[in-house]
């Protein structure tokens, strides 16, 4: 076996879990966490699954832990919000086999709806937190997290950020170890959190925190690198790498465990240096706690609270300056767009004709907010579109007759849309819910979900029938259409929004990019008929180009990009698209 390899942080976490003898792993896809489970299935002896959402994923992991297995739950930062309910109480019950929760945060919001700092969850739930700085530590800290979990009878938060998850660096591999075998032991006062038992467990939690603080004082997860005593820096995670680059000679207290904090170690370090800084991305999480220890420390007044840090920002901060990268040269942008042949495009074009209020959701289809479609009016979090639509409808004055339409994908609907739909039926709120069923969780790179007929382990599964599910919860009008057929789509939308009752439209067409669906020939553009009116450009299809020249430029199809969906053929009023090149 090659023992020195280059791994991403996510590959290293999967490897670390394997080397720890993890038996069960569950998660919900979310950038930048997704690749952990995609990699873990390559290891023998690990069962892994995509759960319908993060709450279920953590609950599966908790069950596995209580059942005696080492268990891992993986999710992105906002996913932990969904899983927060079980998290804050499993902190009381403690674990059986080691239980580790990966929270992959996204400073800079490369692919997220907010920039929340999930380190607060460790303090909130009162569970220890480890923060690796590179792939080697991602692997090592995963192993340490499982050990810590069992030693202190607590779930452990492994907190990473995009640059750690998706950065690659050199890792030394080891052989997997088999943890001490455990099995489920009935213990009602520990595992059943009724108030009387829960109150006793709270006492245990506080005692545990006190012991964890002692542990943090001496563990080698934290380390002091003495250098120039004029400047001392307390840091953790990816920020450590930036500090080493910006101030290679400074004294550094690198914290591997960032909750609870080792007060004695920090006090001693502070005494050993003339000027103390704390460098951390996002919130002043360490800074506030260190200040509460009565220590004079400089942090957020020098290092920004918004966005990612980098070596230049950190170097400037030490000098009391601020660094902003010069504006990039003015060039035509290449924003992310719906792919050529994306089944969502024709749907949104048609939906725009209804002049509806459209509550959006999280997925590829969120890209429909960008010009030229600009088709959604809101986007908050996974599954929010349906509740948002209902509230919007209730708030609308009686003379506002715009239809209210919620739009979300198959996976997002299963994640947390179904409860909203039940509400719409229960409270008889006349909104139309459009489920864009492309048979995959596409935005995160194509993961299976309960409607796709496959599991993460590659086994066949019963494919959830979305239309039957919607009917079963009491929706009377459930219409399924092919979004490549614009007339049928428009007819369905107009009907569904006119029933005066909650209704569902399911657009059914697999994702072309991920499902490698069959492509057809590109249509030809009849240059006699095309007047250059520009209507087809309102689709925002990358395959529709225009001829060079001034004034009204005639349309042209780029056959290398076109998938032959023929949505443009239906949009053109002049019949200029048709036949094949």
């Amino acid at each position: 076996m090659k023992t020195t390899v280059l791994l991403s942080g996510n590959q290293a976490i999967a490897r670390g879990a394997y080397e720890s003898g993890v038996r069960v792993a569950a998660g919900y896809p979310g950038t930048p966490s997704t690749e952990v489970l995609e990699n873990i299935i390559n290891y023998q002896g690990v069962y892994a699954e995509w759960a319908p959402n993060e709450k279920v994923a953590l609950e599966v992991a908790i069950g596995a832990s209580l059942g005696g297995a080492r268990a891992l739950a993986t999710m992105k930062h906002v996913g932990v919000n969904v899983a927060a309910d079980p998290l804050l109480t499993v902190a009381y019950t403690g674990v059986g086999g080691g239980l580790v929760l990966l929270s992959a945060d996204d400073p800079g919001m490369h692919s997220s709806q907010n920039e929340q700092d999930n380190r607060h969850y460790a303090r909130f739930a009162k569970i220890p937190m480890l923060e690796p700085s590179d792939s080697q530590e991602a692997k090592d800290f995963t192993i340490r997290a499982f050990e810590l979990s069992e030693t202190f009878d607590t779930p452990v938060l492994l907190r990473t950020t995009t640059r750690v998850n998706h950065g690659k660096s050199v890792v030394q591999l080891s052989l997997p170890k088999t943890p001490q075998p455990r099995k489920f032991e009935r213990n009602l006062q520990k595992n059943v959190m009724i108030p009387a038992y829960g109150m006793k467990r709270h006492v245990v939690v506080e005692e545990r925190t006190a012991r964890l603080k002692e542990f943090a004082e001496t563990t080698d997860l934290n380390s002091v690198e003495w250098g120039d005593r004029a400047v001392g820096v307390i840091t953790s995670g990816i920020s450590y790498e930036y500090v080493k680059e910006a101030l290679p000679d400074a004294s550094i207290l690198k914290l591997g465990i960032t909750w609870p904090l080792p007060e004695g170690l920090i006090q001693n370090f502070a005494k050993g240096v003339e000027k103390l800084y704390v460098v951390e991305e996002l919130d002043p999480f360490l800074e506030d706690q260190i200040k509460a220890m009565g220590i004079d420390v400089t942090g957020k007044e020098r290092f920004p609270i918004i966005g990612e840090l980098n070596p230049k920002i950190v170097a400037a901060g030490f000098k009391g300056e601020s660094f902003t990268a010069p504006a990039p040269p003015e060039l035509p942008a290449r924003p992310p767009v719906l792919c050529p042949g994306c089944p969502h495009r024709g749907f949104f074009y048609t939906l725009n004709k209804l002049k509806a209020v459209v509550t959006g959701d999280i997925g590829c289809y969120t890209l429909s907010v960008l010009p030229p479609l600009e088709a959604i009016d809101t986007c908050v979090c996974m599954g929010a579109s349906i509740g948002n639509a209902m509230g919007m409808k209730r708030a609308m004055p009686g003379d506002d007759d715009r239809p209210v339409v919620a739009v979300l994908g198959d996976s997002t609907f299963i994640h947390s849309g179904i409860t909203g739909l039940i509400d719409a039926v229960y409270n008889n709120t006349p909104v139309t819910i459009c489920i864009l069923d492309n048979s995959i969780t596409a935005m995160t790179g194509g993961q299976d979900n309960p409607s796709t007929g496959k599991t993460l382990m590659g086994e066949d599964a019963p494919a959830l029938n979305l239309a039957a599910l919607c009917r079963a919860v009491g929706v009377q009008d459930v219409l399924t259409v092919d979004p490549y057929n614009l007339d049928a789509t428009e007819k369905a939308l107009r009907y569904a929004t006119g029933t005066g009752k909650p209704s569902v439209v399911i657009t059914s067409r697999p994702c072309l990019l991920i499902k490698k669906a069959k492509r057809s020939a590109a249509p030809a553009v009849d240059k006699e008929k095309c007047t250059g009116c520009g209507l087809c450009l309102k689709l925002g299809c990358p395959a529709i180009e225009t001829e060079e020249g001034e004034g009204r430029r005639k349309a042209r199809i780029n056959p290398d990009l076109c998938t032959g969906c023929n949505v443009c053929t239906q949009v053109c009023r002049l019949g200029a698209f048709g036949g094949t090149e």
Partner: protein
Amino acid sequence: MERSVTNIRLAGVGGQGIIVASEVLCEALLGSRFDVKKSEVHGMAQRGGTVNSDVRFGERVYSPTIPHGDAHILLAFEQMESLRYLPSLKAGGTVIVNRQRILPGAVSSGKAVYPGGIEETLRARAGRVICIDALSLAREAGSIRSVNVCLLGALSAMLPIEEELWQSVITQRFKNKGLEANLKAFQMGYQAARKD
């Protein structure tokens, strides 16, 4: 900043094989016993956007991202993207640019104009500019999908990596798909950079 670290930024358009190229590069650097780190952002970039990947190597690398303006080499897979990332180049650094043009939506639909005079702009800032017709070379080598490996061949002319190691890393990576074209494209890229 750390002097013994070399910074290479790869930049282009989603679908050009930039991430695969940076993986191959990192394997070759690791095989040459350097400390290596790389960083890129996954997710939205897949959807036709601009893509970049940072690769850093040396005795000991800390930050996985290249500090702004510190790239020693900019390997641009597309002409306009070389301009977009030019500010990340260190003064006097090297730009290797593929002459291929991929029109963004705004240009192909007539709302914006593809910039001209790109080579002149590059030469005004860079210490050295190497222009490669990677698309033609890859086609000649047998597959237009080998553009990325062709550009690695050009890059290899600047790097302390043994040729045999490149061959073995490329073989490992492409043993099941398009190996012959990739090995040929690599050689052609290397020769083109040597001649430039």
